[in-house]
């Protein structure tokens, strides 16, 4: 079933666009904000989408950036009321066209037709997945132990933690070298706990947690950070799913405490788990706002 996704915070506008596309005979699906937009993209793989550039909290450009981070390429038509943003928006990756709100009646349908004609059957581009043999063997066996995913860009830190935790022989340990890999691996292995560094290039720990929230994956996250910056800590704690915060320098010093913290996370009360799940189901866009720094301008 081929689909077109229309993302706009105004219901009136969504209806106008749907009417314009009606002659194409595609199923039209909607999203009211950026988070819903991303979820719809992931759930339905639309042929293309129209994106309102100006949306509260998570604007169109940020949305595209997040889709890029998780490796999804859905062609987009940007719609904006801001003349000066038009040129810049058209240059963003995967943006096919950017048009002004006042011109949609004339232009939108023909751009849509072009996209459908040129769509390469739902744009199959392959994604490379890289798994160390140790982790592959974990996957071969039946899932009997809890899974812990370690995300840290410092190789030595990662190696130490993997070795220490594997030694306990209590959980399956997986690791990822940055936030993006962590994100991809998390969706594949569905960990019971993510232990993540905060300061990492490109997709940092906070972004990682934000994106998991946006996609609706309620994996508990424990942050590990060298930061003593109160703002970072406050932001990290504002996120849904973040259950614990541990100072990096304490990992080796207070090893036993660290392991206890992991254990207590893994033995979380099922009721609490259900509650987190429920919170991820409904979308609270302000959760993203409180944790800050998501917005990018264009």
């Amino acid at each position: 079933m081929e689909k077109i996704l229309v993302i706009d915070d105004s219901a009136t506008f969504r209806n106008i666009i749907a009417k314009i596309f009606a002659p194409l005979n595609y199923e039209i699906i909607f999203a009211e904000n950026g988070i819903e937009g991303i979820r719809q993209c992931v759930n339905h793989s639309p042929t293309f989408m129209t994106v309102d550039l100006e949306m509260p909290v998570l604007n169109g450009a940020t949305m595209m950036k997040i889709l890029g981070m998780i490796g999804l390429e859905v062609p987009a038509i940007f719609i904006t009321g801001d003349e000066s943003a038009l040129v810049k928006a058209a240059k963003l990756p995967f943006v096919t066209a950017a048009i002004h709100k006042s011109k949609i009646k004339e232009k939108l349908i023909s751009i849509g037709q072009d996209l459908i004609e040129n769509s390469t059957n739902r744009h199959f581009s392959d994604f490379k997945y890289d798994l160390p043999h140790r982790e592959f063997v974990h996957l071969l066996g039946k899932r009997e132990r809890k899974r812990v995913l370690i995300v840290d860009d410092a190789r030595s830190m990662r190696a130490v933690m993997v070795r220490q935790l594997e030694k306990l022989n209590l959980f399956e340990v997986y690791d990822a070298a940055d936030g993006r890999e962590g994100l991809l691996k998390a969706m594949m292995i569905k960990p019971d706990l993510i232990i993540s560094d905060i300061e990492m290039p490109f997709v940092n720990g906070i972004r990682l947690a934000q994106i998991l929230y946006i996609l609706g994956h309620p994996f508990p996250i424990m942050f590990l950070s060298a930061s003593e910056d109160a703002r970072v800590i406050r932001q990290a704690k504002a996120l849904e799913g973040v259950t614990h915060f541990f100072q990096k320098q304490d990992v080796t010093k207070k090893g036993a405490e660290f392991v206890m913290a992991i254990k207590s996370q893994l033995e979380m009360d099922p009721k609490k788990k259900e509650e987190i799940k429920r919170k991820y189901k409904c979308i609270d866009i302000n959760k993203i706002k409180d944790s800050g720094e998501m917005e990018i301008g264009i």
Partner: protein
Amino acid sequence: MESKTIVAIQQDEETIKILSKLGCQVVEAGDCIEGLRLILRHQPILVVSIMKMPNFNGIAMAEIMELFQIQTPIIFTTTSVKDQKRLNDLSGNHGFILLEQIQSRLLELATKKLSEPLKPVGHLKYMIRQREWADLSSSADKKRILIIDDSAWVKKACMMSLDQLDSYALFSAKDGLDGIIKALLIQPDLILTDLHMPNLDGLAMSQIFFVLNQAFPIVFLTGDTNHNLSEKTKRIGGILGVILKAELRNQALFHQKIMQYLDDSEVNHDEIVRDFQKGNSELLAENEKKMFLEGKGLCTPGTEFRPGTHHIAALRKGGGGLGDFFG
């Protein structure tokens, strides 16, 4: 807690006592299926296993380990010197010991095996299609169906047909090996697989899933109307039934069957899981002569040993196998 482990399969108390002198935790298994599962669970540094066992023996276990590039050395215990030549068919660095030598030589042999370095194994590099990637990222509760067929045409026909329903997340793989990896990564709710495929065929794959204790419900897709598959295979709980390729032409019927099988697998889920958990090797024996078990590997004691007829042997000859997946 000690992190280093030795897995001992069907060994007596004396042997265990000797092994515990090596300063490792010794984990015991009653047969090779349980043994293989413990190997996956503990990733031991050494395995000491009986070679001959009914239905699923030590060599078969070693072959599956090789298939997945698990390099742990195995010391086989047996009663006959003749059995040593079986090791020639394995590429790993394995050892061999007669039962009467255990007292005198086991400790020395084990120490030697432990001191030899293992070949490093690369990373599994695996490609996932973007559409599949999107389905993996999704938190919507769609049922996942994995379609395995070496014919691109049949695969596409199935996918396009099911895609119209718009209610499943669809994944595909090109043969049994590819299917195993993908199934492990995506955890499908149903596997629809061709029977005859190069590398690893549908039945062999289903048996490996059984040995690994991965309880995926499986439906076979075949063009052969004369099969008596249901008779042979229905004892393994995960195998739900057969769809004929000709039935693909009738879309409504095909859709209905898929829905029925998904329901079946849900209703019987607990039973399937229990069945797999028990890992009764007799279930493999039922199929023994005809399938994967044919040939050298999984044969019963006393049967003649004929190399070259085995699926995995064929794999090795063709240079295929999981080795290609590991960069």
